[in-house]
């Protein structure tokens, strides 16, 4: 790898200290001070001019792309980096997901990976000086039959061996945590137990996106909104740059951090992927006073629900039953969702759905992402995030930054390589993702 463009870039490491020019400080004190003085806050992000060359180009200004840029600057001092997005910051999956964070996966490699992400999320507000409102309110995955209860226990046992707080609890305990749940044995889908994961919870997704963007930009990263990549240039199996609607950029490294458009972007570089893009829909109700304090997931009923601090219930479900790039949403989604929610909580029939929306999910055959190198040198992937991309934003960014800066694939993502499909080494998360989010 000595003469790979990755290591060339890696040598351009600047001093970490010089890269850290802190943005305006956020604190209660500053809030009061500026309020009292009537002083405006400075801009968090700007629209810089597009340079003709960067050390690395990241496609997609969602949480993955922004985190990659942030950790490149913060951990590796690499700041001559552009993040390109065809729309606005966090406008794709990063702004459309239901912002659930957890680490109770099924395989040891999955657990380790997502646990690192939870740990990064726990410190993110301080790291970014931006309150991302991580609310570790507890995460419950309900089991309605014995086979799903067995899988819950499987996850709990693997989790415990990795040091993750996760256990199977019974209906009485569930009822205490979520009194609105119908746990009666007569229910059509009786609640036999649940996988309880106390550190799981929700986060304010926009705040994470903006916090990363703000911090990265203040270290010198260029974030280009409304800048669409129209071509990826490859010469002799090596990436050389991209074309955009605002001009051409030469770069020795291009990272595909898109969701929903991962196949389309890879087509530009001639790399084929094992992805199928499905819409994933969500909906939100009108606010009511707080009554639901944990995140509740039912795999059998394809639904997950949590209540925001604003009092709205936020619902999600499984991906749509057929692939599509449509984000228009469907009526049948809300119908199924409502039916299933009322199976769980019959007393909230009068709550009204206020808005539904959809995001796009690139599903892989084994419910695990595709991260790392491709047959095109310098063209890197951080794609295939299915329905679980948001949870992994920080760790994916940290690992991709390391790969870009050092040219070496970090161990924590080594099992998620693209080659595993051709070599028949699928990751064993196949079951877990079908169950919950």
């Amino acid at each position: 790898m000595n003469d790979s463009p990755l290591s060339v870039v890696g040598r351009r490491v600047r001093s970490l200290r010089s890269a850290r020019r802190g943005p305006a400080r956020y604190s209660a004190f500053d809030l009061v001070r500026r309020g009292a003085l009537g002083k405006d806050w400075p801009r968090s992000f700007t629209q810089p001019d597009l340079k003709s060359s960067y050390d690395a180009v990241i496609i997609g200004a969602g949480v993955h792309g922004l985190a990659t840029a942030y950790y490149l600057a913060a951990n590796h001092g690499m700041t001559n980096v552009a993040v390109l997005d065809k729309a606005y910051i966090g406008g794709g999956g990063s702004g459309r997901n239901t912002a659930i964070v957890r680490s109770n996966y099924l395989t040891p490699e999955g657990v380790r990976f997502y646990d690192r992400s939870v740990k990064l999320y726990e410190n993110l507000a301080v790291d970014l000086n931006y309150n991302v409102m991580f609310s570790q309110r507890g995460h419950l995955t309900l089991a309605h039959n014995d086979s799903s209860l067995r899988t819950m226990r499987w996850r709990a046992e693997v989790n415990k061996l990795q040091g993750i707080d996760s256990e199977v609890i019974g209906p009485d305990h569930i009822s205490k945590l979520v009194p609105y749940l119908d746990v009666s044995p007569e229910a059509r889908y009786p609640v036999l137990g649940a996988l309880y994961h106390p550190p799981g919870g929700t986060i304010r997704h926009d705040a994470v996106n903006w916090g990363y963007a703000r911090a990265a930009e203040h270290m010198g990263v260029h974030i280009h909104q409304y800048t669409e990549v129209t071509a990826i240039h490859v010469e002799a199996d090596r990436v050389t740059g991209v074309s955009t609607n605002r001009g051409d950029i030469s770069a020795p490294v291009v990272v595909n951090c898109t969701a929903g458009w991962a196949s389309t972007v890879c087509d530009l570089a001639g790399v084929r992927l094992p992805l199928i893009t499905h819409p994933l829909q969500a909906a939100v109700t009108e606010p009511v006073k707080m009554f639901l304090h944990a995140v509740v997931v039912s795999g059998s009923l394809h639904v997950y629900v949590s209540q925001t601090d604003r009092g709205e219930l936020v619902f999600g479900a499984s991906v749509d039953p057929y692939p599509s790039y449509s984000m228009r949403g469907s009526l049948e989604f809300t119908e199924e969702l409502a039916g299933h929610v009322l199976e769980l909580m019959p007393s909230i029939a009068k709550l009204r759905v206020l808005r539904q929306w959809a995001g796009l999910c690139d599903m892989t055959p084994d419910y695990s992402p595709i991260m790392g190198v491709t047959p095109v040198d310098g063209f890197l992937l951080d794609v295939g995030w299915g329905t679980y991309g948001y949870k992994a934003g920080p760790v994916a960014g940290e690992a991709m930054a390391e790969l870009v800066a050092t040219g070496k694939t970090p161990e924590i993502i080594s099992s998620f390589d693209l080659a595993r499909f051709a070599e028949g080494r699928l990751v064993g998360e196949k079951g877990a993702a079908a169950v919950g989010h």
Partner: protein
Amino acid sequence: MIRIPCPHCSARNSAEFRHVGEAAPRPDPSTATPEQWRVYLYERSNPAGWTTETWFHTMGCRRFISVERHTVTNEIRSARPVGSTGPGPAEALSARGDAGSPDAGGQA
């Protein structure tokens, strides 16, 4: 609810059908290399545009049909009985077959 113009039953709501997948020809099992076989199992064009895919009319005629659909607008411009050169049944039950149905196997 999109409508699929079933060539046998007339137009019906998509909820009556199961999406089987993008047409993917089955390689000759006696000569296929692992790479070729896994392209058949896993790799998909996944276009943002027109695609030819197989649907199964689960709650109607129980026929496999071949549908040309635009994946951005969901517009359908043709639906035909699946031909004998149609897709091998790779996706039907491989990894993604029961993605939406955790109770389908022991993986729930």
